[in-house]
């Protein structure tokens, strides 16, 4: 039976496109299940589930007589495609992975509310999934996504470069961090810190270290303008003293890893999961010497409030126009299980479940798991999703750059942010 099905599918493709048929024959039909679940995701989501005999879903596929076909795209194209698919009359994709800064009120309406599914056929220990992440996927009171992957920002440092400049321990406050970066730059072997100027993450982290923020969860712009001003003053000072590279204005997100691997900078802010690549002897000159801690809070706030680092999370959604929503929920439920969350974590996925970080299997493999879980506990997105978020971020970055490069006073930059970004926020 499965044979004839395979044949029929092959032939349909053949009719769809003559050339396509040739390719398909060359590639060979790789499935023999009677049902197919189409998933739209980033490749990372696919690989973290394992392939071949390490396939975490092998048993589930067997049980549900279903094959899972992933269509993978890079993050931004993926989101564009997901929303476009969801706006069609019908889509072949039953599950779509969504990053937490994209579900605006309008976008969220295109996706199935998952609470009903959860009530009927609940995910194992749902409360274990970080509450902040679940809140991030609850738009206008509707839960539209089940968090599945996190990337929490940590402070990475190069032990050897610190030691050479006379520091035998990483900083415990933001002020210490600044002092260390300046000292390391003065020492002359490396730049104190490498940050990318094209992402909001970094100034947001600095602002939060002083108790401020860019836009908080209640859509308040600059809830503490003085804190943002202080953050910009500190960053401008670092730039002026050479603790940030001269090339700051052109440094991009992709470069951070290389700078750290090459030992050109002593500190950077990166997701905890990057520890593996930073310490891989094949690509890193400082394998085993690059460590991570939570980004430190200012000494004035230390012990009073917890630092809230930036986290980016992905969640699994079901487009409202999907064909097989029940099967999609079965898939989401299976992927979200404790067992699979651990399995994915062992494959390098940042877990969404708090308990997973404490699994001995993971802590044995990943020394940072415990630190990461602590940071994640207080982490939240860089800013909440809204229609004009991309433009708001662009203006923010622009003003930050001007302030850091010393072309505008931090005060003016903050005032300008307020004036320019406020009109973009949802009413």
């Amino acid at each position: 039976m499965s044979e004839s099905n395979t044949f029929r599918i092959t032939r349909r493709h053949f009719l769809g496109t003559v050339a396509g048929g040739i390719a398909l024959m060359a590639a060979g039909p790789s499935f023999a299940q009677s049902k197919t679940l189409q998933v739209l995701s980033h490749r990372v989501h696919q690989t973290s589930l394992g392939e071949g005999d390490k396939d975490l879903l092998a048993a589930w596929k067997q049980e549900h007589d279903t094959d899972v076909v992933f269509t993978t795209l890079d993050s931004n194209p993926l989101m564009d495609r997901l929303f476009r698919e969801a706006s069609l009359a019908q889509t072949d994709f039953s599950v779509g992975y969504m990053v937490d800064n994209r579900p605006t009120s309008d976008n969220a309406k295109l996706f199935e509310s998952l609470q009903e599914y959860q009530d009927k056929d609940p995910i194992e220990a749902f409360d274990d999934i970080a509450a902040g992440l679940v809140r991030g996927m609850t738009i206008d009171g509707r839960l539209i996504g089940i968090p599945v992957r996190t990337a929490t920002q940590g402070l990475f440092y190069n032990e050897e470069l610190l030691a050479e400049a006379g520091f035998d321990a990483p900083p415990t406050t933001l002020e210490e961090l600044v002092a260390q970066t300046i000292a390391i730059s003065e020492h002359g072997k490396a730049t104190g810190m490498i940050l990318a100027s094209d992402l909001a993450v970094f100034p947001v982290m600095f602002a939060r270290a002083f108790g401020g923020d860019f836009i908080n969860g209640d859509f308040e712009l600059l809830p503490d303008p003085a804190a943002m001003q202080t953050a910009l003053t500190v960053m401008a000072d670092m730039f002026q003293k050479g603790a940030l590279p001269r090339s700051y204005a052109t440094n991009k997100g992709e470069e951070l890893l290389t700078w750290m691997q090459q030992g050109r900078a002593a500190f950077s802010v990166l997701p905890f999961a990057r520890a593996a690549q930073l310490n891989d002897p094949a690509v890193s000159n400082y394998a085993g010497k690059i460590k991570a801690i939570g980004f430190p809070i200012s000494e004035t706030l230390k012990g009073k409030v917890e630092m809230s680092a930036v986290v980016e999370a992905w969640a699994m959604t079901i487009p409202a126009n999907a064909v097989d929503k029940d099967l999609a929920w079965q898939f989401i439920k299976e992927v979200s299980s404790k067992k699979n969350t651990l399995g994915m974590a062992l494959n390098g996925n940042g877990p969404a479940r708090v308990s997973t970080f404490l699994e001995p299997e993971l802590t044995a493999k990943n020394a940072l798991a415990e630190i990461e879980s602590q940071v994640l506990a207080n982490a939240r997105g860089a800013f909440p999703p809204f229609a004009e978020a991309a433009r708001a971020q662009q203006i923010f970055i622009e003003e930050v750059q001007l302030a850091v490069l010393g072309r505008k006073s931090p005060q003016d930059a903050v005032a300008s942010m307020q004036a320019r970004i406020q009109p973009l926020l949802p009413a």
Partner: protein
Amino acid sequence: MRVERILVNAGKTLAVLLLLVWSLFPIVFIITSSFKPGREIFAVPPQWFFAPTFDHYITLWQRWAVFFHGLLNSTIVTIGAAALAVMASTCAGYVYSRYSSRWLGASLLSLIAIRLIPPIVVTLPLFPIVNNLGLADTHFILSVLYATFFVSLGTVLMRTFIDQIPRELDEAASMDGATLPVVLWRIIMPLAAPGIIAVAVFVVVFAWNEFLFAFIFTSTKAKTAPLVISEMIGSIEGVDWGVLFAASTIQLLPVLIFVMLMNRYLVAGLTAGATKG
């Protein structure tokens, strides 16, 4: 005078050298980097001498099998697009060359005008249509779209070439017993070969590297190599540069070789019309 001439020559040489460095550097960088051990790719100062390694290619093969499937798709789509564009441009170019009327003139103008519309404007409304027709994620739709985009330029180019083929040749052939398709196939196409090659090169380079249409209209079955490469660049786990450069090298080479092989005809083709044959 003499000194001046030497200076001018030196200036020219320098300009050519700069141009060469400017255009070749990225290619050389990508290719050499793909053979460098990971740690040395971005070493400062750059490492000019290194022990070449095939590790990145091996990793690419093991971890990104989908890339090779993408290459196969790219090849099918590219050949399809080139064949379609060449056929359509030759036929249309023939009509514009051999017949004239007010409507034909207007239609040629509209062909060119359509080309001025940004592709993205066309793609978005097409998306639901293509989906409803069941053509999404097929090589066919990509080939057709790529060909469509070059038919206007191709037609104008082919018309220029066909204009240079004396009309008497068509007439002689039709007196010799050839029907119109035979005239096109046996007389026009061989004589317009440089034009056909020029059109083919344009389409091949475009189709091989195209991202936007492929991104919008494919999922898995017809997914082309540039999409896979974009996933490597934007990977949310951090970029594995060595593997990315290995993939870029593999992606680059076929077109580079094709263009180099066709270069002779291409130059002849693009300058045709400047002097009468």
